[in-house]
């Protein structure tokens, strides 16, 4: 009896101690799926001392750079301040950027079911504007657009995939909203496509304005801004309607095709893409003129990692800036050799813009050389020569009356 009670007490003590150890010993920055364990440990090193500026002074290629950065803490002579001196030109590679460079490929969360944005082609590659922007980031990081793992995500699991660190960046026609920026914990980057919410109806219904849809059943994808916009808009106009929500596009457009719902709502570009690829008689359907909402579709990364966000942000700005300066895939070599100072600085011929971001000096040159400027990307994915024939609308440089205004690269 006495022995038993002693055992139970011992058990309880061990249990409490073990739980306490478990609660303290986990990795600090990432959940297990996010990164390899070694990286998790590396980031949890208690004193991340600043590498001396010389340690990463002239990085020529990503792998060596990383090797030096990892070795840096042991080389650090002083072990004093935790922040690099403000005058330091080279950035310390940490967080998500380090994870991605160590891994050697970018994990890009895409839609995968939306023609024109990201869809798997017969040759095994993804096409579409979102897939092209995955390549823009990969070009800046690795000088190789094949070092990408595309991860198709639904509207339901896209934010969880980013929150858990499963994907590095979300390029999945996602609307930039305040709620997602704050409560969901994302960091939105420059809008890659300015869109608006619309409604797709059969031409035979002769619906010209929203009031003509009174009493209709309207299909919508769950977990989208369109779902809320539909409710808000129709309630404001006091129009009766029944929503029918589906988790993914194939099911939704099948139901629309079969007449289970009278109309579908989504972003206008998306309606154009799905009409062309998923409906049996695309010509019988029309997108109504009414625009229900603003839908700025922007890439997103997880918040609180400014270095990684900067890399993706400026890679996107580079495609705008290049179009503004008249630099394209064909003339980029010539511009690098013979351009003015501003152009050379942008392309890495002079200055240290790429290096300051923790990348190679010619990061933006690679983006234009391997993928192209925004105009070229748009032309081959959504423009008038494609089956979608989406007008560029607001997606033109500010010099042509559009919304694309890149901050200066200097």
């Amino acid at each position, binding site marked *: 009896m006495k022995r038993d009670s002693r*055992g139970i007490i*011992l*058990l309880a003590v*061990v*249990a409490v*101690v*073990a*739980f*306490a*150890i*478990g*609660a*303290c*010993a*986990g*990795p*600090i*920055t990432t*959940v*297990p799926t996010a990164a390899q364990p070694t990286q998790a440990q590396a980031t949890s090193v208690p004193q991340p001392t600043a590498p001396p500026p010389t340690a990463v002074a002239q990085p020529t290629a990503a792998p060596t750079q990383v090797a030096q950065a990892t070795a840096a803490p042991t080389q650090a002579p002083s072990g004093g301040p935790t922040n690099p001196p403000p005058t330091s030109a080279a950035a310390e590679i940490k967080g998500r950027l380090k994870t991605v460079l160590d891994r050697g490929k970018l994990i890009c969360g895409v839609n995968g079911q939306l023609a024109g944005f990201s869809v798997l082609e017969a040759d095994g590659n993804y096409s579409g504007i979102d897939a092209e922007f995955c390549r823009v980031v990969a070009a800046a990081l690795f000088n190789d657009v094949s070092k990408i793992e595309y991860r198709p995500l639904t*509207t*339901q699991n896209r*934010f*969880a995939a980013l*929150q*858990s660190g499963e994907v590095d960046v979300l390029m999945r026609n996602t609307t930039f909203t305040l*709620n*997602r920026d704050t*409560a*969901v*914990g994302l960091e939105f980057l420059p809008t890659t496509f300015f869109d608006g919410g619309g409604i797709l109806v059969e031409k035979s219904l002769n619906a010209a304005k929203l009031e003509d*849809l009174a*009493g*209709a*059943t309207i299909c919508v994808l*769950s*977990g989208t801004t369109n*779902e*809320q916009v*539909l*409710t*808000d808009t129709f*309630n404001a106009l006091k129009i009766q*309607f*029944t*929503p*029918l*929500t*589906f*988790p993914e596009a194939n*099911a939704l457009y*099948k*139901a629309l095709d*079969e*007449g*289970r719902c*009278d109309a579908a709502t989504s972003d206008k570009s998306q309606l154009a893409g799905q009409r062309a690829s998923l409906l049996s008689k695309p010509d019988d359907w029309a997108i109504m003129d009414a625009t229900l909402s603003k839908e700025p579709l922007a890439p997103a990364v*997880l*918040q*609180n990692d400014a270095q990684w966000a900067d890399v993706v942000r400026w890679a996107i700005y580079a495609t705008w800036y290049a179009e503004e300066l008249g630099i394209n895939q064909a003339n980029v070599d010539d511009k690098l050799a013979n351009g003015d100072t501003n152009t050379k600085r942008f392309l890495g011929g002079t200055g240290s813009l790429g290096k300051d971001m923790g990348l190679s000096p010619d990061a933006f040159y690679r983006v234009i050389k391997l993928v192209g400027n925004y105009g070229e990307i748009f032309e081959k994915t959504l423009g008038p020569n494609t089956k979608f024939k989406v007008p560029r609308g607001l997606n033109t440089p500010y010099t042509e009356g559009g919304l694309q205004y890149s901050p200066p690269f200097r």
Partner: protein
Amino acid sequence: MTSPVPTAPSHTIPFYRDVRVLRILAQIVFVALVLLFLGYLFNNMTRGLARLSGSFSFGFLDNAASFALSETPIPYDPATDSYWIAFMIGVLNTLRVIIVGIVLATLLGLVAGIAQLSSNWLVRKITQGYVEIFRNTPLLIQLFVWYFIGVLSLPRVRDSVELPGSIYLSNRGLALPWFTPNETFALWFGLALVWIAVAVGAYWLLRRVKIPLVYEWRGGWALLIWLALALVSAVALNPFTPSLPAVRGFNFQGGTTLSPEYAALLLGLVFYTGAFIADIVRAGIQAVPRGIIEASRALGLTYVQALRLIVIPLALRVIIPPLTNQYLNLAKNSSLAIAVGYADLFYVSNTIFNQTGQTLQVILMVMGAYLIISLALATLMNAVNARFKLVER
């Protein structure tokens, strides 16, 4: 003669070879490992939340939901009603599927289980084919087939099939005549409850009437009395106006509509679970000793009488425990509703955490809700089991 008493060992056993110590030690190590793992997960969660700078609170549930739902058993206005109301609508929609699904799956399983043992070759083979096909294909695939091939290929709403009694069938669902309550409805409903008490009283009184036709069928007579009273008061009070469905504008107006999403989910769950129940029923009947069945037939009972009075009561003891598992499976499988667009608990929760970003809290709520539903079902079935199990003296 007497064997020598073994002398006490000159040395004590070291603790690492003492079985008693080792047993306790092994348990301590195991508990420590489990707790270490739980602690790791807990730590991961708190740090993850800190990284997302999210706080763990359920305050967001009071905010207006602002997303419309296609099926709402209780009145719901997305502009003003909270996420909590939306969540509860999801729970109600789930219960609607589970309760109806369990009743129908049990009936189907009972019939198919008995038919599997039929002496008729065709009936036996057809039911065996049904059980094998539905038991051995994934439920999700079956749901897709029911919805996309079954329900959606029905005629469009403007070409609906009209069945007798103002019933319309289309791929917008089954439109049925229904009623709209008048202001006298509450009074009539109260009276109907009173009439139930009257019918129960009649059931007790009829027991004393010594006419076989009366006391043997007293349940039927009591029901008849209640129906007659309810009908008479309904004629007197006029509590509801009948409402017939008709196509007006895009959809059916009036009447009530059984949605295709609900129908597809219900059909999928009933046929899938019914196949498992059929096999449980078959096994239960076969567990009844053959001699008992033969004895009951020898007593002059008909096949149906033998089944009803002898075989099923004995088989129930074997059937009920595995049946509970199937009910729980049906309850949990109902979360596949999202695939066919039915607004159940999981579907609504998905939308909520997508909009609010409070993934952890909503997932915990969903797990809690399913846990409560499952535990309630299990408790109920355990009570039924206790009533039917063999009483040993």
